């Protein structure tokens, strides 16, 4: 078995499109999304990177191309080295696409579901791509950069509960954030803090 630095050079020899990725710790490579499966299989079988410890994605903000990068962290349980493999998703912003690696590591199943849930990345070939942390039918992908920290008002998923509780939506009381108490409207000791109206400022006039 060779050292991890050799893994990167061997990779680059075998897959000429693989490039080194800037990293502050472990060896890291950029891989074209079409070759992800082949590269990871090669790393697993030839360099004993037998454990997929982490699979996640990074959103590089709206309008940035490519916008989503899927990042894999592999660990060799025998040689005790890590390697980071990153691949930019294909497809458009609304539905970025990456290949599923569940065929290589069954443990990737939940990680990919989480990535789909949080970023909306479609993993092609995933046996059961459902949401995992948010509920089925939730309309947003919360870890995308355009999703506000305070959340967005969402329709209650279950019509039965909505009818019983007479509430149609799950509110997001923090929307708009920083909190202010609105003076003069009610007894301030009893009032909940409300979001500050930021639609106007010194530069922008207050709307009527």
């Amino acid at each position, binding site marked *: 078995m060779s050292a991890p630095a050799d893994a990167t050079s061997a990779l680059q020899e075998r897959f000429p499109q693989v490039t080194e990725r800037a990293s502050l*710790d472990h060896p*890291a490579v950029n891989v074209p999304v079409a070759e992800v499966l082949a590269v990871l299989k090669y790393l697993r079988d030839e360099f004993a990177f037998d454990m997929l410890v982490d699979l996640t994605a990074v959103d590089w903000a709206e309008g940035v191309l490519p916008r989503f990068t899927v990042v894999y962290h592999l660990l060799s349980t025998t040689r005790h080295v890590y390697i980071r493999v990153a691949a930019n998703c294909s497809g458009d912003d609304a539905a970025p696409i990456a290949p599923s690696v569940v065929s290589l590591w069954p443990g990737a199943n939940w990680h990919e579901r989480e990535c789909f849930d949080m970023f909306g990345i479609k993993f092609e070939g995933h046996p059961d791509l459902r949401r995992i942390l948010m509920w089925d039918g939730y309309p947003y992908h919360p870890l995308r950069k355009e999703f506000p920290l305070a959340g967005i008002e969402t329709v209650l998923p279950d019509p039965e509960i909505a009818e019983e509780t007479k509430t149609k939506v799950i509110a997001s009381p923090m929307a708009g954030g920083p909190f202010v108490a609105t003076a003069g409207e009610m007894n301030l000791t009893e009032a909940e803090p409300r979001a500050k109206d930021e639609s106007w400022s010194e530069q922008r006039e207050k709307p009527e």
Partner: protein
Amino acid sequence: MATEIAFSDSAAKSARVRPAPGAGQEFETEKMSLSMGPSHPSTHGVLRLQMELDGEILTKCDPVIGYLHRGDEKIAENMTYNQFVPYTDRLDYIAPLANNMAYAIAVEKLAKLEVPARCQAIRVLTAELARVSSHLLGLGAFGIDVGAWTVFMYAFEEREKLYKLFEELTGARFTTSYSRIGGLQRDVPEGWTGRVGAFCDQFLPILEETLALLTRNKIFMDRTVGVGVISPADAIAYGLTGPNLRGSGVGLDLRKDKPYSGYEQYRFDVPVGTKGDCYDRYLVRGEEMRQSIRIIRQVLANFPGGDWYAKDARKIFAPPKDKILTSMEELIQNFMIVTEGPQLPAGEVYFEAENPKGALGFYIVSKGGGVPWRLKIRAPSFANLSILPKVCVGCLVSDVVAILGSFDFVMGECDR
């Protein structure tokens, strides 16, 4: 023979299944869907299992998670590195001291900070105490799950003593926020190390007594031996870490194999199981507690002096309070740290620490500045639970309870 049926999502809904043609069966068999959790004593929090049962045998198990999802990763993108420390308490809330340490080391890697030996030693000390505390709870809860109440009582009495120590050290019993980026919240109080040593001395005999309640207990062994067997290959393929991986006979321990915080100077053994069943996972945890005490004693025997924070962490640490109130320079520095956060370089780091539940990893993508661009938390409980659909099939419902108990997971960390 029952044929496969569509797996309905609504709870406790049963479906009729046609009898196999020509089998001459007089009864119609039916499979039952049963929802266990999210509020169920044996699901240790808010895990829900959608089970499909054939009689009392599971034919399908679909864990439903996310009930404790708080969006920690989203929150991290919106606050400075220092502000996120208390959130790490709430990942694996059974062992917050170990989480603080893992996060601190991850950010220190990004900031290229080296902490002094005393800080490293105190961190190891707290992480091992947290491991003992976490395994005690895991043991006690496992005992209750399979019907052994007494273990829980013993375990919680010891945990209480540990919490007294934590409170004295950090000011909090549960949410400690002790390891900070570049150092610690404060130095150990006077006489504290002595009290830790005294705890170890009295703890070991009690630990043996507690483990003796289970180790050769006929009822316990009947419930756990040969139940929930995970092969080494499966354990690796599903990304299991911690005692669950080692219970399957894979001797991967990051403290030994990727030493951090000075673990390389301590002598300890890594226990591994042979069969990978619930009983092996229990044995591994029991032995890990003995090894933790061994490490703690070594730390105490060579407790280094000197600073407990990195000297070059001045841009990360708030200056001492008296300096803030009297000196202009420190006041400005404090103001900058609080408002803009510690200015860290751009880059990517991934660090995993061997936490009580498994490898807790932080993947930080920084574009420079005081706020991470992306912070992914690799939760050991999340990966450990992902093998449930495979392990539980073919088990009895009562075995599921034993399997869950032996996994020792925490939903706060799984759902983040």
